[in-house]
Every structure is written in structure tokens, then in C-alpha cells.
């Protein structure tokens, strides 16, 4: 066998240094392409839409006159939708994450569920729109006049082809329940919840996993029950991470159009929702609607102004997430 010798090393420094330089510039260009595109987009939006961000945009509904048109119902619709989505996805997502991280036994069923949560996070959003339509919007047609459920129990459903059951829960006037949920803001919120739930679960699990086991041991060793350990140590420590995950998921949800169109959100809503059972629209749908109109005021200027508002809300949500993460970060030494 040949022994390694000094002469066997051909350092070739010049070539190595020049390829280092080439790759440095290639990588920089990759970054600049993204940065440049984004800048062009934002500058274009600001030029086209900037002057159209006026009070009418926030106080008026869509109008046949572009100079009077606004997106009030869309902004309110988006915010309510976002609120409902947050309200539903927080307990469901965190609960599922706690179960999977702290309680679930390590067996085939658990790993099957794990794989599927990851798969669900990658399912196209339009599929969730169909799910929302069938499950929440129509409830499988269970409350249509010709369904077996209605006929078997002789339920007093509505006369139309869709039927529908309407009653007040426990007889309380404001606890109105409608089955199926129909094309309402409640169904929209639930559809969005389904959409972001996998991501919320994954983010919450990550956050729970960052809590060191030594903290769990310490709590147990002091005589804590499992739930005391989780509620007093794990959750408070994981909370900033969980919140960050939820906020980032919500900022994805606020930009979603397809699932809500499928689910049955409306394009023209000249009123604000007064209850969960009202029709609604959201900003991306309003923007899409404007883009399809022939007049350039809608197509270019109002749409751009709408996008600026949407981006502003989205970026402030992300800023809140970054702020929370920084503020509550724990430096384990």
C-alpha cells in the first residue's frame, strides 16, 4: 500500500478560492432575485393603489361607482373569520398537540396519526373548501326534506330543496342554531379551522417539545400530577411558541380565497354580519372580484389598494408573532 506523502497534496489554492467567490455571488443573486421581485411588486402596488387608500375604502361597500366603492364588509368579514378561526383552532390544535406529545402511547396508531397530520398540512386548500361545504355548509344533506334522518324522525325542516332546521338552543333567543350551517360566516370559520389545524398542531407540538424533560422531571419530583406538570410548567413555557404558530397560521388563513369560494362565501355583500348565521365575504374574494371587472379603476387601482390593506394586516400579524417570540424567549443556559 502506498503511504500518503506530502507530494500527494495538490493544494491548487487559486482554483479553490475562485470557486468560493463564484458561489458567493451565485447565492447572493438568488437572494436578490426574490428581493427584487418583491420590491417591484410592492412599489407597483403602492403607485397604483396608494392614492386609493381613502376613507371610502373602509367605510363603504362595493359600489357601481369606483370612486365610492369600498371593502368594508370584506375587511370586517375577514377579521371575524380570523377571530372565529383562532377561537376554534386554538383549543383544538393545542389540545391535540398536548395529547400527542404528553399522553399518546408510542404505537402504530400514533405514528399513523402523526404521518397523516403532516400530510394534511400539505393538502391543497381547495380540498378543505369542499370538506367545509359538505360537512359544515350542507352537513351531508342530512337536513334536506328527503334525507333518511328527516324522514325517520319526522323533523320539521324547511320547505326548500335544502330543507334546514332552525331552533334556539335551550330556548334562549340569542342561542340560535341552524342546521346545516349553510353559507354562513360560522361555516367559513370552521372551514378555515380545518385548513390551519394541522399546522397549528405541528407548531404546538414543536413548542411543547422544546420544553426540556428536566423540567418535567423537576415538577414530578415535587409531587406534581401529570396535568399539574403540563398546565403549570409545560404550557406556560411552550405558550409563546404555540401563539407564534397560531398567528402565523392565521396569517396564512387570511390570504386564502379558494376554500371560502367553494364553501360558499359571497362576492357581493352590502351589509355587515350581525350574527354567526349571516352571509359574508373576505378581502381576497373582494380583491378577486374587483380584478374581474372591466373598468381599470376596479381592476387596477381598487384591487391594488385592497391588496395593500390585506398585506398590512398580514404583516402586522407576523410582527406580533415575532414580537411575542422575542419577548418571551427563554434562554436556557
Amino acid at each position, binding site marked *: 500500500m502506498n503511504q500518503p506523502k506530502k507530494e500527494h497534496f495538490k493544494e491548487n489554492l487559486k482554483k479553490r478560492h475562485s470557486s468560493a467567490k463564484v458561489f458567493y455571488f451565485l447565492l447572493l443573486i438568488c437572494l436578490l432575485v426574490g428581493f427584487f421581485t418583491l420590491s417591484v411588486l410592492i412599489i407597483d402596488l403602492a403607485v397604483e393603489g396608494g392614492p386609493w387608500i381613502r376613507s371610502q375604502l373602509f367605510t363603504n361597500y362595493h359600489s357601481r361607482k369606483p370612486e365610492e366603492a369600498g371593502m368594508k364588509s370584506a375587511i370586517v368579514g375577514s377579521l371575524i373569520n380570523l377571530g372565529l378561526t383562532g377561537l376554534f383552532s386554538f383549543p383544538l390544535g393545542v389540545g391535540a398537540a398536548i395529547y400527542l406529545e404528553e399522553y399518546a402511547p408510542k404505537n402504530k396508531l400514533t405514528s399513523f396519526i402523526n404521518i397523516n397530520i403532516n400530510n394534511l398540512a400539505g393538502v391543497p386548500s381547495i380540498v378543505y373548501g369542499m370538506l367545509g361545504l359538505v360537512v359544515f355548509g350542507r352537513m351531508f344533506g342530512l337536513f334536506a326534506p328527503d334525507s333518511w334522518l328527516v324522514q325517520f324522525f319526522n323533523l320539521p325542516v324547511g320547505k326548500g330543496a335544502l330543507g334546514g332546521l332552525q331552533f334556539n338552543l335551550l330556548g334562549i333567543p340569542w342561542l340560535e342554531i341552524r342546521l346545516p350551517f349553510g353559507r354562513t360566516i360560522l361555516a367559513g370559520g370552521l372551514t378555515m379551522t380545518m385548513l390551519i389545524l394541522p399546522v397549528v398542531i405541528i407548531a404546538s407540538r414543536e413548542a411543547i417539545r422544546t420544553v426540556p424533560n428536566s423540567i418535567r422531571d423537576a415538577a414530578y419530583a*415535587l*409531587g406534581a400530577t401529570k396535568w399539574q406538570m403540563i398546565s403549570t410548567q409545560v404550557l406556560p413555557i411552550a405558550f409563546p411558541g404555540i401563539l407564534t404558530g397560531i398567528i402565523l397560521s392565521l396569517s396564512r388563513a387570511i390570504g386564502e380565497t379558494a376554500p371560502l369560494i367553494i364553501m360558499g362565501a359571497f362576492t357581493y355583500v352590502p351589509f355587515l354580519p350581525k350574527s354567526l348565521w349571516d352571509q359574508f365575504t373576505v378581502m381576497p374574494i373582494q380583491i378577486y372580484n374587483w380584478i374581474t371587472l372591466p373598468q381599470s379603476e376596479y381592476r387596477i387601482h381598487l384591487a391594488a389598494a385592497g391588496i395593500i390593506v390585506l398585506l398590512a394586516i398580514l404583516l402586522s400579524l407576523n410582527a406580533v408573532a415575532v414580537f411575542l417570540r422575542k419577548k418571551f424567549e427563554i434562554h436556557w443556559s
Partner: protein
Amino acid sequence: MLQENNLENIITTKDLSVFYGSTQAISKINLNIPRNRITAIIGPSGCGKSTLIRCFNRMNDLVPSARVEGEVIYSKQNIYSPNVDPVHIRRQIGMVFQKPNPFPKSVYENIAFGAKINNYQGNMDELVEKSLRQAALWDEVKDELDKSGLALSGGQQQRLCIARALATEPDVILMDEPASALDPIATLKIEELMQDLKEQYTIIIVTHNMQQASRASDYTAFISIDRTRVDDRVGVLVEYDQTSKIFVNPSEKETEDYISGRFG
């Protein structure tokens, strides 16, 4: 074997064996831990010292694959019998871990935690002060009780963990290599503290620092790998006696080899 008179045993193990899945970690260990004494458990790495000490407060229950055979008698009861609640045992038998693990909360909250979860009805400020004084930490932190426990030095963090364990008013304190992550001065402080604490508490300490065992403990149990079993590493009790006897005049050849540094 135990030569002191009037010595009461607080914990007794009977044929204690632990398995992780199908692997046995320790086999048939019989020990009498005397009250108000410091008992050291020494032995080479991987012989099951930590496994043994984690049997005394049922921390092994938290490892899903762990299975315990035999008995651990504490206050006349086998703590592994089905009617014993491990949560109750863990309040009475506190534990200090290898790496200081304060909660990422204030010094005050760290101490108060154990009391709160155990529904302590007394004066919390007094309890916090008493526990910190017992752990010789009060003078260093009394002006910054709302400071994060993580902001303390390593040695202070470990004494905070001791104070935290004391705050639930335990009988026994288990220490699993409490000084292995600390510098010599911080280590000395912990050892001095142990001498003060044994007036009121029983201390069981796992260490692989033999100087520490010989300096700080009254009794020493030497655990080692069972040489008769070729295929697996199972910890067995080789010798258990007063520390002075173990380190000066051990009865077993293996003990002598270990403490004189010939293996381990």
C-alpha cells in the same frame, strides 16, 4: 453490618430489580438506608446507580418500558404496592438532579411551586425564606427573589433546586450526582449543606466522585456490574457498609479495586 446503635432504617429495599423492556438494569438489591444519615451510592458508569435511586421516589414509573420487581419499604409500606400513590411518595421523598433544573421562573416561584401544587395552606413568604435559608442561599438571593432562577450561577441554581425540594417538607432527599456539573467551590458548598441537612433529613446521594463519597457520606453502597453474567450489564450490590470501613478496609476485593482506581 451497620455498627451504630439505635439506628432506624427509613428505607429498606428487598430484592429490588429493575428492567427496561427485556433488559435488566439492576438485580436483587437489598439495602437498609438509615434515617438522618448520608448514604452514598458509588459504582462505575452504567451500573444502575441512577436507576436505583430513581426507585426510591418512583421516578422510574415515568419511563414507559421500566418495570420494577421486589420491594421498597418506606414508613412500613412497600411504595410499589398498588394502593400507594406515587404523587404522594414524591412529595415526601424529594429529588435533586444531576444538572441544575430550576424552572424558568423567579426564585420565589421556584420555591413556592411545590407548595402550591400540594395545596400548602401556610404562609408562603415564610416557607420560601425558611427553605432558602436551609439551602444556604437566602443571603445571596434575599434581595432579588423575583429574579429568574436561570439567572443564578450553576452552584446557586443547584442550591435553589435543593431549597425547592425542601419546600415540600420531605423526609428524604435523593441526590443524583448533584455536583457533577459544578466547580469545586460550588461542590464544597453542596457538601457542607448536606452535613447541615442531615440533622433533619435523610440524604441518599449517587456520585461517581469517590472523594466526595468518602468526605461527605456516613454509609456507602458500592454497586458494580455482575461479573458472572457475560451477556448483559446488570448492576448488583457488591458491598454496603459504613463509609470509613468501605474506604479503609473493604471486605470485597472488587470494592478495593474500584476505590483504589484500578477500574471504573
